[in-house]
């Protein structure tokens, strides 16, 4: 079994506050993994540590077998990242930001195709700032796909999207998953997690409460839906 992302004993603190507490994660190749938890639980910090954007106290991180801080250039040819609430250069146009991102990679995806897939092709010449919140969010997912990634990180991928746009993003991701893409995401929407994720980890205050497949977790809880099971885990704070 090939492993795409491996996090071992990750610890990170800010001052006195513990942001990530001894976190262990393993994501297999082709798997869709969801990191769930309330705001401030440490999800974005965890992603930042995995990507090498933040240093951590101890533990180890491997993505595609590489250390993200030491082999940054080689690794990010193969990894796409959408950071939470990304923003862009003032008065840059949709086509220009795509061209700029594509220029950074050795074998980028054809962004015209991606724009059509995300129904953003009519906005090519428009300033990014003029897009609606949902269109901007779709654009940020699209930009993360430009490297033709083997591993994709999406931090709150569909926040602010309307139902139709959400479906469009899901369809693209499910399609890519079938082609073997490994996906690491965070989300606050449990319906989305049920549709997309194979396995999830629920964290709170930097602590992993549960790591399991979606059906198993539901089965272990007294409920039928993931949202209820999630709230149950949060309330019980059972550490498994």
């Amino acid at each position, binding site marked *: 079994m090939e492993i795409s992302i491996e996090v071992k004993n990750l610890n990170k603190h800010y001052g006195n506050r513990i942001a990530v507490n001894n976190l262990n994660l393993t994501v297999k190749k082709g798997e869709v993994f969801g990191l769930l938890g309330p705001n401030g639980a440490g999800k974005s910090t965890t992603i930042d540590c995995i*990507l*090498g*954007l933040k240093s951590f106290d101890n533990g180890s991180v491997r993505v595609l077998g590489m250390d993200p801080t030491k082999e*940054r*250039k*080689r690794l*990010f*040819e193969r*990894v796409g*990242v959408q*950071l939470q609430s*990304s*923003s*862009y*250069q*003032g*008065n*840059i146009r949709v086509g*220009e930001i795509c*061209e*700029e*991102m594509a*220029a*950074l*990679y*050795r074998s980028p995806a054809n962004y015209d195709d991606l724009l059509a897939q995300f129904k953003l092709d009519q906005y090519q010449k428009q300033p990014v700032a003029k897009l609606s919140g949902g269109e901007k969010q779709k654009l940020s997912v699209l930009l993360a796909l430009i*490297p033709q990634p083997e591993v994709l990180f999406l931090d709150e991928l569909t926040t602010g999207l309307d139902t139709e746009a959400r479906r469009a993003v899901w369809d693209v991701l499910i399609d890519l998953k079938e082609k073997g893409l490994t996906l690491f995401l965070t989300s606050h929407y449990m319906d989305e997690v049920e549709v997309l994720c194979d396995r999830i980890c629920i964290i709170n205050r930097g602590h992993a409460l549960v790591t399991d497949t979606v059906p198993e977790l539901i089965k272990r809880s007294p409920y039928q839906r993931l949202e209820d099971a999630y709230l149950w885990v949060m309330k019980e704070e059972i550490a498994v």
Partner: protein
Amino acid sequence: MKKFLTLLKIEGKLSLRCIDSIFFGVCMPVGIMILIGLIDGQNPTTSDAGTTLIQSSFGALATVGICATAFMGIPLTIADYRDKKILKQFFVTPVSPTMLLWVHAIINMLLSVVSALLIYAVAKTFFGYEMMGSKLAFMGSYLLVMISMYSLGLLIASLCRTVKTANVVCSVVYFPMLFLSGATIPFEIFPKSLQTAAAFLPLTQGIKLLKSSSLGLETSPLIPLVVLFGSLVIGIILSMRFFRWE
């Protein structure tokens, strides 16, 4: 290289789209040159014999473009890109965010060189300006002043944590540099005490160097060179120490 050129093309377009850098960096100094030419161009300056006001102002006016890019363009762009997490985003690509900084350094250099060339063209075409000193010495001095001022601009970007503070600091640095260093108002007409105070501005020393090389004067360039190289080294060392990508 192709990456760099694509970035240069797109980021360059973005820079041209915001009017203030063009206005303050190019239009304003060219306008001042025309004004000086119209007011007093052919007359000799009051103190030193044999040079016209245009001749003695050229070196100073050529730095207005440097001033606008070093104390507005560069620090404000970096602060803005940091605030918007654009620099952070570059960390998760195969390209170093340093490349983005270099792209903007080149864009701003091009802008200030274009500004200087336009001033020269206007002065030559309409007011019969000829550089008395060596053109090569002038270009060397210009380059030194430019990178020295850019290192100070980078330092401002490093020390200011937010776009707001960067904006305030840039205004506080830009306007005194512009008006007190002799870049726009001839240094010679300042009262003695103000001249002494203004001599502490690095740009004042830069203008002294440019002035003497454009006029072919035999004054010792020692103090200006020490100040400019000093600013350059200090700017770079402190920037490396304090620079934050986010």
